[in-house]
């Protein structure tokens, strides 16, 4: 049997010291974070979270991402075999860059959050070209 190229990473529960704002079980979303000269981009897996159930909060250099799932999908279901826990997502990041908060863009599609954080103008690395005579 051919398997998969991808390995499933067991979902990690959110540390008790970093409680989310709502009750219930919360997991740490897996993320990719990359940086270009203009922006920081965070891509996070939050399966089960609809676009209107995501909260993004930037306070100082602390970025918090939280998402909630729809409990009604599980009504009348009795678990027989379990490989992953079900719950919301919560994760906090410390940003090392000044962000232009007015232009943050968030998109949620197929359970994946794409968060674009443009760097503040004065924080962008400026390229200085050397003039040749």
């Amino acid at each position, binding site marked *: 049997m051919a398997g998969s190229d991808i390995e499933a990473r067991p979902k990690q529960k959110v540390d008790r010291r970093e409680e989310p704002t709502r009750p219930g079980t919360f997991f740490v979303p897996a993320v990719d974070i990359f940086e270009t000269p203009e922006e920081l981009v965070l891509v996070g897996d939050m399966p089960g979270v609809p676009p209107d159930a995501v909260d993004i909060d930037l306070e100082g250099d602390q970025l918090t991402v939280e998402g909630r799932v729809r*409990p009604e999908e599980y009504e009348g279901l009795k678990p027989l075999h379990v490989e992953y826990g079900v719950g919301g997502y919560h994760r906090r990041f410390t940003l090392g860059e000044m962000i232009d908060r007015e232009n943050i863009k968030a998109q949620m599609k197929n359970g994946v959050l794409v968060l674009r954080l443009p760097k503040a103008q004065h924080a962008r690395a400026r390229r200085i070209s050397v003039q040749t005579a």
Partner: protein
Amino acid sequence: MGFAYRDPFQELQRELDRMLEGAFGSVGTAGSLYPPVNVFDAGDAFVVKAEVPGVEPEKIDIQVENETLTLRGERAFTEPNQQAAYHRRERGAGQFRRVVRLPGRLSADDAKADYRDGVLTVRISKAKETRPRRVQIQAGS
């Protein structure tokens, strides 16, 4: 003694946790098969849920045969431009194929799949002989 309000979803979350710990120990070294699936009993059907965030639903191939469900697909990797420098890279990408054996015979032509917010839900009716049946007690003569 007062009434304790029990949120049915929180009860389910706790039960899933208990079953996870029972299956893999509390360390959380769950099997690395992708995608992870949960199987539920819904009375006359089995419901299989799989977490496949970021996969376009039309790229998932689902097959039901005898007692098995096979999921196949690909999670595409979105390569950013050349200037990007990665700080973290935790999300996997690539092809997947997962065979799930269900605890009973299936009625394969009676299966429905739904993809919502990165979770695939496949509902497959149980074959007639494995559905719960109500048995009438015959009145004695």
